[in-house]
């Protein structure tokens, strides 16, 4: 566990991202988070979206990812696709509204990328946002960490 964290911290500083370790799930500092456990990385009006480490851990091994069509509209809080794991299909919701400009085709061949690299190679869609103001409805990394802890303590 210690060596894993050391590696992660080294990798994080190499990639110049800040990492918060909340026990078992990783939360990245520069991202925004929805309460349905999706993350969004914003660069101007371009948004990259995926599911969080907490989400992939609670799902189990992902065996299938249903992707939207490029050009499809997405709305904050609405489902745009789904992932299947342990005989359960779980809807994935968009943290922002806009138009899908790219989908991660790699996930059709390697759905497990969602588990192994939820914030990087396991990204799901890229969206051109039409309302950056919506970002204020999302959580930052600290709020999201706390949210996960509260959820996990329910049972």
């Amino acid at each position, binding site marked *: 566990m210690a060596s894993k964290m050391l590696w992660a911290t080294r990798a994080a500083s190499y990639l110049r991202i800040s990492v918060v370790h909340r026990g078992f799930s990783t939360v990245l500092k520069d991202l925004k988070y929805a309460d349905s456990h999706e993350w969004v990385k914003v660069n101007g009006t371009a948004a990259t979206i995926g599911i969080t480490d907490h*989400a992939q851990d609670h799902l189990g091994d992902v065996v299938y990812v249903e992707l939207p069509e490029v050009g499809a509209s997405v709305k904050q809080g609405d489902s745009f696709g789904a992932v299947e794991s342990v005989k359960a299909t779980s809807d994935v919701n968009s943290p922002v509204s806009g138009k899908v400009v790219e989908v991660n085709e790699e996930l059709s061949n390697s759905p497990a990328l969602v588990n192994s690299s939820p914030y990087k190679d396991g990204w799901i869609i890229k969206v051109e946002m039409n309302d950056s103001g919506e970002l204020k409805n999302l959580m930052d990394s600290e709020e999201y960490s706390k949210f996960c802890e509260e*959820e996990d303590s329910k049972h």
Partner: protein
Amino acid sequence: MRGPLKLEVWKMGFVNYLEALKLQEKLVSDRKLCRIPDTLLSLQHPPTYTLGKRRTDHNLLIPESELKNIGAELHYTQRGGDITFHGPHQAILYPIISLREMGLGARNYVEKLESTMIELSSLYGVKACAGKKCETGVWVGERKIGAIGVRISSGITSHGLAFNIDPELEYFKHIVPCGITDKEVTSLRRETSTALPSEEVIQEQLISCFARLFGYNTVVQKENPSILSDHEEIA
């Protein structure tokens, strides 16, 4: 921690698959809006083959046109999992519950569904266990006694589990059940030497196992549950 958890059980008897599906869609929507508590449908279906979101219809071994001749329907659904068969003498539970309120993820939810069927089996001296990786479901040795296929939408569940009390196992010969070749399907009747009570009793026990494993402290039965009555109900 958590407040008191209430479960409302609908004992529905024999229900056509599509009607049950439409009812679930309405209940999921109601549950999302907190109009209803966690709800559990307990029922059986007429002979029906169903496919999951991945549409693995290559696992149906007879032509679709033949299905009518054997008295079965085929339906495509949004649930997880592969092809399966539902029919008389198979106990089905469709929980419409809020995983978010419980703080449960998909994996834990499915494990609890497996435990529900394992516990029921043990009441009859049958030692069942959960499937290994990629083989979600409940097994007695190499034989499958219970199947799971679930949909989770905004944290609300639909579809659920199917436990073989004593279904006509011949129907399973027309599919590669759950996409797993070279494994048999079995039933409680086949695995136990205990005399079985009525199916109503077994279904009631299945509901009890579910309620206990999920920590419900209040279980109420809905009076006169029907497909139609709630569509007409004024909220």
